[in-house]
């Protein structure tokens, strides 16, 4: 066991607190100590609530001393993307417009984690209104990658990726509408779980696109993510789009082997135009999966460019509708790039939007037919490792959308199909930047992805590596 509690995994620290190896105060103080060291370098936190966190930790310790264990995360300090409403707390959504917005309700996902016993450390930075893939934020500053602070974290869950990578929090909620969990996981070298649309309630989470938004965690390991998804998943009267299906025991899937499983490798699109180091890591990942007993098969997928286009049409239209009032009343209070992207949605005819929504069923059916017989598909999260903050600071320039499209090329099709996708750390570049891969599964088969991801992490240590403070 590490003598620095903040370096432990979520599952390990929860056991350590419940078993009284560490108090919640000791664990919380360890996180706060690291936050004090790292925050000036990475700008991952929106708000740090040290006194309140320590008071909550003391309360958790007092309860435990009386034999009261509130849940499987009793006394574990966490921080989340600043778009999950927490009654009485300011929730900025990374924006100037909501700089002083105080939530009057608590999001279902957050409440379920609170019910499991978590302690609030504060809130995490994010891209303005979760609408951007790089991690830039004109109002609160760019979040920086702990592996190299000149590089992006990816977005929009930028603070979540950075804070988990630097071990400032054991896990963090993100959200994924076009890749916003998987890209920070890939660029920052942590595990991120974009869940099936409809698995976890979106009630009380800031909306961007009602058809594409998904809630999910970023954490050190697949096991950590499995625990969190299991706690948050399931029907919610406050979000009628949430599935009524029973929630499986995802933790039970963390011990399965890969023998007898088939993993598909796309023959096109996801393997085209890759940075050479991403291509190398993909090959190494496939070799590891094969070595662990999986059968690797090639899959010919339908044209993914059409899915990307359909995703952009749905996302742009729905985002513009959510923001129309502020686009009229407060356009000057948006950052240039987010306003630009919101304006794009004004130019999509209703018929085109509805065609994109109507095609979703047939497109998913065609994808599922193409991957029939496989347990998951493996693909890069992005064609490249983290680029620099300077070179991706494109604002609202003419080529901004092209830059965004290139970064999100491999994530958007999965959002359109509504499928689960688990991003796991799978290697590093020669210059020390992380590279992740996504395991794409069938709808509501998160357990299948957990089985594969956990087996990969038992065979490798990429998820356990920690960046050094320069």
């Amino acid at each position: 066991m590490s003598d620095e509690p903040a370096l432990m995994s979520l599952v390990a620290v929860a056991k350590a607190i419940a078993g009284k190896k560490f108090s919640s105060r000791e664990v919380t103080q360890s996180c706060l100590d690291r936050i004090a060291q790292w925050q000036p370098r990475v700008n991952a936190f929106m708000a740090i609530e040290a006194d309140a966190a320590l008071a909550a930790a003391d309360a958790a310790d007092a309860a435990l001393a009386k034999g009261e264990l509130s849940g499987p995360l009793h006394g574990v300090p966490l921080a989340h993307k600043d778009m999950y409403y927490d009654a009485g707390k300011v929730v900025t959504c990374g924006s100037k417009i909501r700089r002083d917005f105080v939530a009057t309700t608590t999001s279902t996902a957050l409440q379920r984690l609170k019910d499991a016993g978590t302690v609030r450390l504060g809130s995490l930075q994010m891209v303005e209104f979760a609408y951007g893939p790089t991690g830039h934020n004109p109002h609160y500053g760019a979040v920086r990658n702990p592996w190299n602070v000149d590089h992006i974290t990816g977005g929009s869950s930028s603070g979540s990726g950075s804070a988990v990578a630097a071990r400032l929090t054991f896990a963090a909620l993100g959200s994924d509408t076009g890749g916003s969990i998987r890209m920070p996981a890939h660029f920052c070298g942590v595990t991120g779980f974009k869940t099936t649309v409809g698995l976890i309630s979106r009630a009380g989470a800031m909306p961007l696109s009602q058809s594409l938004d998904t809630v999910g965690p970023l954490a050190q390991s697949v096991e950590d993510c499995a625990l969190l998804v299991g706690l948050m998943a399931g029907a919610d009267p406050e979000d009628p789009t949430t599935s009524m299906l029973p929630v499986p025991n995802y933790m039970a899937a963390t011990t399965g082997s890969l023998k007898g499983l088939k993993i598909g490798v796309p023959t096109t699109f996801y393997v085209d135009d890759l940075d050479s180091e991403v291509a190398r890591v993909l090959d190494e990942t496939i070799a590891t999966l094969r070595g662990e007993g999986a059968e690797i098969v090639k899959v010919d997928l339908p044209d993914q460019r059409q899915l990307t286009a359909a995703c952009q049409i749905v996302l742009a239209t729905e985002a513009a509708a959510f923001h129309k009032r502020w686009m009229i009343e407060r356009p000057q209070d948006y950052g240039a790039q987010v306003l630009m992207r919101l304006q794009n949605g004004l130019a999509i005819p209703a018929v085109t939007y509805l065609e994109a929504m109507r095609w979703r069923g047939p497109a998913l059916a065609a994808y599922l037919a193409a991957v029939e017989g496989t347990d998951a598909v493996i693909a890069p999260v992005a064609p490249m490792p983290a680029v620099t903050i300077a070179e991706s600071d494109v604002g609202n320039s003419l080529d901004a959308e092209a830059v965004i499209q290139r970064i999100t090329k491999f994530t958007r099709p999965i959002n359109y199909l509504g499928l689960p996708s688990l991003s796991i750390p799978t290697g590093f570049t020669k210059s020390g930047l992380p590279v992740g891969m996504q395991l794409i599964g069938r709808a509501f088969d998160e357990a299948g992805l957990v089985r594969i991801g956990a087996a990969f992490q038992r065979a490798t240590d990429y998820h356990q590596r920690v960046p050094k403070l320069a």
Partner: protein
Amino acid sequence: MTRPDAKQVKAMTDVAGVPQDSDVSARIANSIGPAFDGFAPVSGTLPMDLEPASFLLVQRAKVLK
């Protein structure tokens, strides 16, 4: 389906109630154009008896079985 040009975009933003000037309209046309191009093979080909809710039927079919 063809991508809208700047003039058409300007008209659409006017109708949407969030009017934009010519420069912004040109920029929007440039940004959103590739999405129209990418979706063109699908647009205008879908059968009438197809609702957006068909997505949920496909998504949950295997699980419910």
